[in-house]
């Protein structure tokens, strides 16, 4: 590097980065693909197209996407309240947002299950309307919403704080109504952060295991998620099947996250 920088050490820091990423991420993932790669395409297809795998994949990706979308809406609302208003207990509320990060997911799962079970505090009322809380795809969705929304709050919060109120005031003096100000000024400004929040919540939900296994009931074809299916294969010593499902899941996740990132770049182009 010919250019002088205040803080030197490009070679050292890049070397460390590459080594670290290799040890922690690349090598384990490579090992996974080596294991799965031992099988031919026909075997891959046979494992991945099994009805039980497809059902689990549909539930995992579907519930994760739905939960991430709800997290975006709820997260935006919570962020708005935390940033725009000053009220007693605001800091406490702000700290509470991080609890789903800290709580062991199993604890969250058990607690949510007991509350949303047909005889639980909330579950009994849901049952009255014919909705089954725990032990259903809806239960999976509830657990994923719980763990996902802090990601949205924490990514949108700094952006909303920076945004200030001047843009809204400018729009208001130009005659824009409240809904117009929100849709045409605030939302576009927050959209990149909202998408980042969605991506994080979505990615986290796809990999979530601990909280879901308690609330879902784990019925094959009905409420079984992919991570659980992988564990189930392992318990039957079907290591290659487990590796193939995991690898397939990883490829789909990576493709989805990559697409979202592309969309993000498209939206952010005016900042480049």
């Amino acid at each position, binding site marked *: 590097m010919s250019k002088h920088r205040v803080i030197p050490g490009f070679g050292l820091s890049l070397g460390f980065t590459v080594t670290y990423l290799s040890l922690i991420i690349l090598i384990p993932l490579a090992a996974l693909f080596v294991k799965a790669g031992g099988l031919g395409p026909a075997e891959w297809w046979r494992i991945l197209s099994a009805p039980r795998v497809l059902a689990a994949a549909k539930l995992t990706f579907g519930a994760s996407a739905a939960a991430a979308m709800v997290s975006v809406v709820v997260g935006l609302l919570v962020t708005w309240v935390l940033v725009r208003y000053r009220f007693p207990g605001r800091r406490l509320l702000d700290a509470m947002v991080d609890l789903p990060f800290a709580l062991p997911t199993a604890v969250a799962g058990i607690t949510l299950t007991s509350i949303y079970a047909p005889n639980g505090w909330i579950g009994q009322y849901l049952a009255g309307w014919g909705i089954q809380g725990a032990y259903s795809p809806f239960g999976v969705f509830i657990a994923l919403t719980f763990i996902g929304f802090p990601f949205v709050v924490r990514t949108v919060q700094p952006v909303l704080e920076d945004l200030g109120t*001047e843009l809204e005031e400018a729009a208001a003096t*130009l005659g824009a109504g409240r809904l117009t100000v929100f849709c045409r000024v605030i939302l576009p400004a927050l959209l990149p952060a909202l998408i980042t929040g969605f991506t994080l919540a979505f990615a986290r939900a796809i990999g979530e295991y601990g909280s879901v296994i308690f609330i879902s009931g784990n019925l094959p074809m009905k409420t079984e998620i992919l991570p659980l299916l992988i564990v189930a294969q392992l318990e039957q010593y079907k290591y290659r099947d487990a590796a193939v499902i995991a690898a397939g899941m990883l490829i789909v996740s990576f493709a989805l996250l990559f697409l979202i990132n592309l969309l993000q770049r498209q939206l952010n182009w005016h900042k480049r």
Partner: protein
Amino acid sequence: MSISIQSIHKTFGTYTALDDISLEVPDGSLTALLGPSGSGKTTLLRIVAGLEMADPGSGRILFHGNDVSEVTAGKRGVGFVFQHYALFPHMTIAQNIAFGLDVMPRDRRLNRAEIRERVGELLRLVRLEGLDKRRPNELSGGQRQRVALARALAIRPKVLLLDEPFGALDAQVRKELRRWLRQFHDEINLTTLFVTHDQEEALELADQVVVMRNARIEQTGTPQDIYDEPRTSFVYEFLGEVNKLPDGRYIRPHEIELRFAAEEGVDVTGRVSHLFVAGPFARVSVSPEHGRRGELEVWASRDQVEEMALANGDVIGLHFPSVKKPG
């Protein structure tokens, strides 16, 4: 359209931002709200715009005789320009300028072609033709401020309100834009109220200057009145350079006459501590003798300084012809 501000109060919790403010802004005038930070000038501007509401029951804002105190910002028909431009970053320049036209109720909204035409007119008016497809972050500060002005003017506002419009610009651009705004105002003759903390800007630009301090108006008048006849010591010190005499009286540097120490009518003698000649003018700093503290600034003509053959260290006499004591 004239603006009439009648006994407005504004408090934020226990802090008084505006204390019984009344002010008339004549139709077509360019009025400056001048004061140090915290004097309440921006709060007053925001109340006129409807972005802030005065304390309940405190007073009224009239536009051309109509009470607009309860009218929301969007319905007041004001053009507001923010210090930091507040352009919409995700829109092009043309979209920014057209925003106020796009969001009009459907029955009053212009069609697309008319909007495009109006945007083109405004771009010409602020001399930014050809930049319509750019984004705000591709423009310089001065250009952005002119876009903000064009956007405010697009809705054909009844009054134009500018909050420290040149505050974020560097000195050179600020001077140019200031001159441009003066010409621009003379062309369109829109009642304009602007906030500034720069006395030079207020004196050079405005028809009427309102000096504010600590939530109150200190003095209102033409720039000439305010400069020549300051009513309070604050106004004296805030506007232009001034010498404060030990007895509390004030005198401007150009009002002091230089004489030889032995001449008649000498009020104070002193030693020249610094002499700087710039074109036809000379700035002379004089340290008074007899233990008086503080230097006196004197602006004299170059001719006089050369005639008297003044040099650093000379002892000279000063005459104060018209010393005022503000009320």
